[in-house]
């Protein structure tokens, strides 16, 4: 309990602070601000800029989606607290896409209609991103995904033979499956010494793409694909597929998809008596996978984008601030990348405002999109900047293993090509 003297001093401080705040508000109110129909809104004391968030906030992928939303919220609060962009207050508008492309597209249309929105973080799913990209690009509204890994989103549908950027407004902070799949294959074949794989995917953009890049590299290394199957992500009974896996001589299962399927699939494979690990990508790297797989999930592997956030000195402040804010949900696999995605938008807005005498220009969205290409800062996940396709220049990956009911990092890699 503070002493009386301290209370008196605190009262004095409060009085002085109040007086200074009142003065500052008066001065701010006296200043004129002409927004000229640009994005953002003048709230009398400055401009409000909205950063949209699109992620699955309900449904099976809620854990990852809420981690994204909370992390963007933290970035916005930090920018406002530090008054990082003079005269600009940031807000977020988070919309739920439920992991569905159609919902994502509706959300994109809604965000475009709000002129205060100058950038969007999201979505989680590559298939959802596909449905949103054109809507945003037509409106020159910048989109930065912390989680999309399908290479085609940045490098075009023919990325394998001719990389070609389709949408100038699309950026991402996550590494692509062009690296993640082969990275997983190299680890599974060379380090885990697994030579015969049964490949399962959910037929979605992300899952099928990742399974494909994994398979190609695994075969190049000398591994054998002893079976392939597709599953419906809306079902939870995989007995038909499990029987095929059980009857194969596979020593590992690779699953291209997300944890709502991967967890039960892993459990059912082991329950059937086939004690082989299930390996997946960043889509299964969630605490919810472990809950769904149960103790049978021990030894399963996942690759995920980036180095373990807890190991990065640049992430310690993020982790501490996230805890201090008291968010109920964990930041999960994409928290650091979501914070960095939001901060990239904040940096772009700052650049645009500073280049326009402290005000947002009329064509703020186009200018923010243009500025994003040259954004560069030290973020939670390391250096954040983008290449000519809108892909992150910082390409790190980590293999995690389920041990003791938790994901434990096993090996990390950095792409320096």
């Amino acid at each position: 309990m503070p002493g009386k003297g301290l209370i008196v001093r605190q009262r004095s401080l409060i009085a002085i602070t109040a007086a200074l705040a009142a003065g500052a508000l008066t001065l701010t109110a006296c200043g004129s601000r002409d927004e000229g129909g640009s994005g953002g809104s003048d709230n009398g004391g400055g401009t409000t800029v909205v950063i949209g968030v699109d992620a699955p906030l309900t449904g099976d992928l809620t854990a990852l989606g809420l981690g994204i939303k909370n992390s963007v919220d933290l970035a916005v609060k930090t920018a406002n607290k530090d008054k990082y962009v003079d005269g600009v207050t940031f807000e977020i508008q988070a919309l739920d896409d439920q992991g569905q492309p159609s919902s994502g597209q509706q959300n994109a249309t809604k965000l475009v209609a709000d002129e205060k929105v100058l950038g969007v973080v999201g979505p989680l799913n590559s298939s959802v991103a596909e449905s949103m990209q054109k809507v945003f690009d037509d409106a020159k509204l910048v989109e930065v995904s912390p989680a999309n890994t399908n290479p085609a989103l940045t490098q075009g549908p023919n990325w394998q033979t001719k990389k070609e950027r389709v949408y100038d407004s699309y950026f991402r902070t996550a590494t692509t499956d062009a690296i993640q799949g082969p990275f997983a294959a190299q680890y599974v074949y060379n380090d885990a010494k697994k030579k015969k794989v049964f490949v399962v995917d959910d037929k979605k953009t992300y899952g099928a793409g990742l399974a494909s890049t994994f398979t190609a590299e695994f075969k190049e290394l000398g591994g054998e694909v002893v079976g392939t199957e597709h599953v419906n992500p809306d079902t939870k009974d995989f007995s038909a597929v499990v029987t095929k896996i059980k009857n194969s001589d596979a020593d590992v299962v690779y699953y291209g998809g997300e944890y709502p399927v991967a967890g039960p699939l892993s459990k059912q494979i082991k329950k059937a008596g086939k004690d082989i690990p299930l390996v997946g990508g960043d889509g299964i790297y969630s605490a919810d996978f472990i809950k769904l797989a149960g103790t049978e999930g021990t030894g399963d592997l996942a690759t995920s984008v980036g180095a373990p956030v807890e190991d990065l000195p640049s992430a310690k402040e993020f982790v501490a601030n996230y805890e201090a804010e008291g968010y109920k949900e964990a930041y999960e696999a994409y928290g650091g990348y979501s914070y960095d995605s939001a901060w990239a938008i904040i940096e772009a807005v700052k650049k645009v405002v500073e280049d326009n005498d402290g005000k947002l220009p009329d064509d703020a969205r186009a200018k923010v999109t243009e500025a994003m290409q040259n954004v560069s800062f030290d973020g939670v996940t390391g250096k954040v900047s983008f290449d000519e396709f809108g892909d992150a220049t910082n390409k790190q990956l980590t293999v995690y293993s389920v041990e003791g009911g938790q994901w434990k990092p096993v090996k990390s890699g950095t792409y320096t090509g």
Partner: protein
Amino acid sequence: MSGISPVEPGEGTRAGDADPDSRPVPGTPRQRLTEWYTRHRRPMLAGASAAVLLAGGGSFYATRDKEPEPPAVHPSQTVRVTYLGAESPPPSAPTRSFSFAVRVTALPGPPVTVTRISQPYAAVSLTSAPRPPFSAKAGFARKIVITMHVMDCSHVPGNAGLPFLDVTLRNTNAIDNHSFILGERYAQDVSQALRAGCADDPESSPKPLNTTEIIRAHPASSHYPDRANQPEFRSSTHRVPLCNTSCHNKRVTASDRLSSAFPAHA
């Protein structure tokens, strides 16, 4: 006013009122101590004051608000390894050897020691010049020549898209075994060198795309248990890699290989 001290000295409060028995007896140790103290009173007081100040200062220093310690940095976050290109293998290299150079760069952070450089293929061994361990402080940028030796042509990868170079790094905080994925050009050069190195013996050449069939067709019996029977690759015209700018044009790129496998959008 309510003073609590006596207005005048009370009985027994004057020096002269003290009990005569309590005065030091001349010649006794107490008397000698008293006399010594009287003679050295000023230096004694000065010394005591200095000791108190020193103790106070020390206590203040020990309990001061310390600068936050720099966060523990993993060595893998402060070292970069980038591919430079093919090199001629050293004259002492065994047959089926090829060389390339990488640059190891140390970013700002605690000094790092490179304790090991390896690659993941069981059929290939690796040496480097300089040999680990070597230290890398901030600003360090050094060319390292890697020489790989193919020990078993039947088990080298056919056309891997993203081979690793594994580097073990140590600093005062941690030891990391980190994979550096050196990119397409490195992958192409390694694949080309492996193919060239094993090309003269079809029984043991690296596996092409359909690896399942090759594994069945070329069991482990196609190894070279006797090095004397191995083809010679280190002659001037067959040394691998024969990689210069022109040979890059002949290579199948990683993207090409993936194109047939990657599906249209789901």
